[in-house]
């Protein structure tokens, strides 16, 4: 009853092709954005900003990247962490070489380096598919991990082998970790994520998105229609890696403050992001956000629960339980709803459409 499209008819294709054709959706998005941009910085405390919101947004961006590659284009990739790392390390080097350039510009630029590396490691996709491609992406992941640790130029010959944050500001306000205030970092991250999500949405709704999905569903037929397979796949790798790279750069410079190689390895980055898009829903932008929120929030939830019920639990045990829960939930979701939270969301909206009738 609330969510009816009755009375909303489109009189031209432009309206039908808009991102949010339904009025209720437009209102909802508007309200959400207003909330995120205006209300949250005022009411959220540092913990929520630093531990929940900023990491969720950053991982959501990386998840969107992986979703473009795996969910929309069907190229399974286990190398997201590596590409995030390329973004982070590029940003670090750029910040060192160009100390006067705005950090936000550097973050956005470093994505291109990640994109270039992504295209290079995407070349095997011309001949290799499915699981085999996943293993090829592992090659990129392990190689990049090795490179981050073994090429001293990348980390400016630091003794620690880690990259450090730099002191940068935006419009005169300190921004980068650890100097910037959380609310400001949050706003910058939010802006970047919203803009890049809008761009991703445009791409997906246009001819490239359709080409990606065609390649995913039946690449032979796609070829017959005239779609150039290699170009389409490499574009997916490029865009996906760009998003991962920007996410990686933001992670180091707007969230963590410093990073060691482990931050980008398969267990801390590649797999969790894959879980995010599985649970969130393959081929769904909103699913990427939901999955990111879920995977980022779960450990926090598990750590917080014992305190809520007055139970003493060691940190290590909490981590074990978190792993078990994540694994169990993945299996659970795959059984109940392989299309993830996004599908559940759609079903919910469907129910809203016909409410109060059952169907």
């Amino acid at each position, binding site marked *: 009853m609330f969510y009816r499209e009755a009375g909303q008819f489109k009189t031209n294709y432009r309206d039908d092709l808009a991102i949010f054709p339904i009025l209720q959706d437009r209102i909802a998005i508007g309200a959400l954005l207003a909330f995120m941009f205006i209300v949250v910085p005022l009411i959220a405390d540092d913990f929520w900003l630093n531990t929940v919101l900023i990491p969720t947004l950053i991982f959501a961006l990386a998840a969107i990247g992986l979703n473009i590659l795996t969910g929309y284009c069907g190229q*399974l990739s286990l190398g997201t962490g590596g590409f995030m790392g390329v973004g982070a390390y590029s940003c670090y080097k750029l910040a060192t070489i160009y100390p006067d350039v705005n950090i936000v510009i550097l973050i956005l630029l470093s994505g291109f380096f990640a994109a270039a590396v992504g295209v290079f490691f995407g070349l*095997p996709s011309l*001949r*290799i*598919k*499915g*699981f*085999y491609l996943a*293993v*090829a992406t*592992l*090659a990129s992941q*392990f*190689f990049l*991990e*090795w490179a981050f*640790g*073994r*090429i001293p130029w990348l980390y400016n010959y630091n003794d620690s082998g880690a990259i450090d944050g730099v002191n940068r500001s935006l419009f005169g306000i300190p921004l980068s970790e650890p100097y910037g205030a959380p609310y400001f970092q949050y706003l910058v991250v939010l802006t970047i994520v919203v803009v890049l999500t809008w761009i991703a949405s445009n791409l997906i709704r246009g001819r490239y998105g359709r080409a990606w999905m065609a390649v995913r569903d*039946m690449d*032979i*037929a796609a070829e017959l229609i005239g779609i150039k397979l290699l170009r389409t796949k490499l574009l997916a790798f490029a865009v996906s890696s760009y998003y991962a790279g920007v996410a990686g750069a933001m992670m180091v410079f707007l969230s963590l403050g410093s990073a060691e190689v482990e931050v980008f390895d*398969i267990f801390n980055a590649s*797999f969790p992001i*894959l*879980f995010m898009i*599985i649970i969130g829903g393959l081929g769904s932008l909103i699913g990427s956000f939901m999955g990111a929120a879920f995977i980022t929030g779960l450990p926090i939830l598990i750590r917080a629960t014992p305190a809520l019920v007055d139970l003493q639990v060691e940190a*290590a*045990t909490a*981590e*074990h*339980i*978190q*792993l*078990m*829960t*994540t*694994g*169990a*939930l*993945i*299996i659970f979701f*795959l*059984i109940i709803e*392989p299309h993830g939270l996004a599908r559940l969301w759609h079903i919910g909206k469907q129910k809203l459409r016909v409410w109060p009738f059952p169907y």
Partner: protein
Amino acid sequence: MDWVLTLLNKLFVAPLVEIAGAPDLFIQVLWEGFVAGTLYSLIALGFVLIFKASGVFNFAQGIMVVFGALSLVGLYSLGIPAWAALALCIVIMFSLAWTVERVVLRPLVNQPDIILFMATIGLSSFLVGFGEFVFGGEPKTMITAELGLPSGSIDLAIAGGLVSLQKIDIAAALMSAVMVTGLAVFFNKTRIGRALRAVADDHQSALSVGITLQQIWVIVWFAAGVVALATGIMWGARSDVSFALEVVALKALPVLILGGFTSIPGAIIGGLIIGVSEKLAEFYWGPLVGGSIESWFPYFLALIFLWFRPQGLFGEKIIERV
């Protein structure tokens, strides 16, 4: 163009000179590669078993290796004598197989392979957490002596130098050979083995012909579990049993690429190739770039191989029909 010559020299000529100068060292490296290769093959074997009979790529195979070893050590530390602990472990692996079939595989029986693959990733995560929860995260020592496995080494004087072969490694190689032969016979000569191969191609047709999927899946996951247990014992005997093993287990993937996903001899040969090439590369090329290239070299090798032969050495050619 000088740099090209220098590069070629460094890559190919210098190592050959080194090999010629210290052949015993070369043989030692070869042996180490052979040993590592045997263990990769065993892990790959577990993958192949499950994939051959159910079309499922069991990402959790590596963690099953760790789990098996941990269970054994854990039971022994409770006071159970070694051989009884071993028998009990086999029961545990059976229960694991049975549980996985009921909880994970049966509900997902008609889903596309990618869904099942992701389910095994979830399973792997669960088992890591569960294993750490039950057994604790610190490394443990394998009960080698109690199981009757040899220790110490045999030193051979070869090629003017000394080559040292660990007895446990020889035992591992022998055991793998026995297991592989047994499995090959099982799949090719027995009725159940043939049924398993039929199931792999198509779940639904197998159902319509009357083969009970459930039993077959339990059998095959159990077999993979036993292989995993044996692998865990052998590997744990060389270095401690810890969850670091899980990362090493990912090395089985290049092995599978080389050997194909459905071939038992392929898993063995692929494992040996990966093991030997990885150690040789690390020893002779590693120092040129700062070492530790073992972590990615096998993957690159597999990648190059895949480029020319997308189905691996022994795999079936992928024919796509429209």
